[in-house]
């Protein structure tokens, strides 16, 4: 029996879909019993959502006033305190999981596997290295606890249908005071979330300015799409940092990805190659993005994008 503990990512009221993708990853293990740990001030709403995920056996509430913001230094000892019975401790490969899971692994004195694409059995997994330019099969030691981050782009979110038991665990470990939350300046929230959107439109340096990004937003609104950006566009100040798609930004797997004015540096392609359909619009016919695009259109984005918007509006896409 593989006992899997998944650390829930949430904003205090809503469970992030990255957690449901971790559940799907854990279900790849034979005979897995899956527990989701929810660290929050009041965990009841998030715990109820976690308990409703198909395949989850148990939800553990870890409630403490210090859990108002997800600080790894405070969350890690709480997870470690309940981790003894588990063979696998997983979290998403989002900034939340990348920050927290290694801290947990070190406190447990065990290894971590990052960006897991598949858990094939209790001791074997696959993951990408070199920005996805090589895939490795990794063997962990039998009987050793394994901590991992789950590459969310490799998994569908677990659906509803579960009715797991919800238990509360007392948080009676000493929590450090050396790390304090100050503020969070969040990006716009009136568009779909980049990491879970089914359609994403990204802009590159060819957009030329932050103001020019508005033609992408107009098209995105027509399609109900999220908006992303290449590293070059973010570095140039055309788009916010949380919009960056690629090896060091967000790795996404939407149904439709439209790359506009993006040449297709390998670091960017790493972040999008699991997209179902890729469209590239670029004035340079030699741009590497065309090598992986299902549909390519060579031309001036400032003419093509408004025209696309008109055509899609007419069609009610």
């Amino acid at each position: 029996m593989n006992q899997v503990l998944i650390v829930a990512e949430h904003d205090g009221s809503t469970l992030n879909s990255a957690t449901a993708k971790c559940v799907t990853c854990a279900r790849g293990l034979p005979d897995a019993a899956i527990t989701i740990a929810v660290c929050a001030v009041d965990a009841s709403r998030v715990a109820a959502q976690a308990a409703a995920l198909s395949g989850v056996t148990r939800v553990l509430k870890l409630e403490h006033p210090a859990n108002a913001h997800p600080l790894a230094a405070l969350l890690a000892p709480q997870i470690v305190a309940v981790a003894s019975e588990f063979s696998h401790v997983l979290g998403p490969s989002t900034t939340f999981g990348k920050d927290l899971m290694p801290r947990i692994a070190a406190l447990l004195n065990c290894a971590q596997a990052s960006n897991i694409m598949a858990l094939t059995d209790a001791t074997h997994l696959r993951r990408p290295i070199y920005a996805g330019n090589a895939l490795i099969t990794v063997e962990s030691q039998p009987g050793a606890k394994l901590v991992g981050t789950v590459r969310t782009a490799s998994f569908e979110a677990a659906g509803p249908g579960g009715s797991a038991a919800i238990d509360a665990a007392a948080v009676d470990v000493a929590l450090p005071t050396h790390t304090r939350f100050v503020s969070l300046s969040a990006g716009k929230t009136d568009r779909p979330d980049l990491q879970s959107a089914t359609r994403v439109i990204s802009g590159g340096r060819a957009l030329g300015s932050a103001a020019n990004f508005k033609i992408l937003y107009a098209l995105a609104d027509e399609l109900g799409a999220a908006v992303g950006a290449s590293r070059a566009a973010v570095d140039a100040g055309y788009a916010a940092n949380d919009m960056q798609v690629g090896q060091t930004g967000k790795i996404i797997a939407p149904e439709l990805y439209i790359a506009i004015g993006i040449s297709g540096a390998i670091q960017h392609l790493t972040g999008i190659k699991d997209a179902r359909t890729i469209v590239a619009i670029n004035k340079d016919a030699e741009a590497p993005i065309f090598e992986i695009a299902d549909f390519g259109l060579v031309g001036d984005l400032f003419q093509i994008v408004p025209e696309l918007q008109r055509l899609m509006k007419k069609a009610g896409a």
Partner: protein
Amino acid sequence: MKRILVGIKRVVDANVRIRVKPDGSGVEMDGVKMAINPFDEIALEEALRIKERGMADEVVVVSIGVVEAQQQLRTALAMGADRALHVRSDVGVEPLAAAQVFLKLIAREQPLLVILGKQAIDDDNSQTGPMLAALWNRPQATFASKIELADGTARVTREVDAGLETIEIDLPAVVTTDLRLNEPRYVKLPDIMKAKKKPLDMLTLAELGVEARAQLKIVRFEPPSQRQKGVLVKDAAELVGALRKRGVIS
């Protein structure tokens, strides 16, 4: 002495196209250009700027790995680090063991700050910083895009999925760097000459009492599946038609 420790990892240069060996035993490393991990360059640049602002007295760069890693340490010294420590290991060192090495060096060097890259671009693990902070029982500020030092504390802005998060941490602490923290300086020729005279001390894992036991064994390397090149369409109307035909849009 206010000291900053910076981790320097020798990795395949970011511009090299990685090829998996046909027998699946590894990636092609013969004659491949090596460089400082880009995030570690950013870490060093930040440490140098902190020193230049008078907030630190000494910047010490550390590399764990093969003897050739001293090339990257010399580059780091040319960028402006004061001295270097090379912890030799001829076998791969997993992040937890790397964190244990840094913990031993912290005991010797008593740094105010340890700055590491948020990830190495070879194994893409993104683990060593938080692991070190955990073993050290000190704060961590990962994915930093801004570091403001005050007396005994630091305010760090972090690039998180939701936007920019600011936290305050007590020092000493571990910070890991994100892309937009700074733009590393170029090395000037006279500095390369000067760097040859800067101290570079060699240590072994055994001297530090750290065992590089591999907990995760790589059984096989494979190239990723390639996407097929698609078709070029002539205009927006044809694109919309093609997407509709595929059922991607209605």
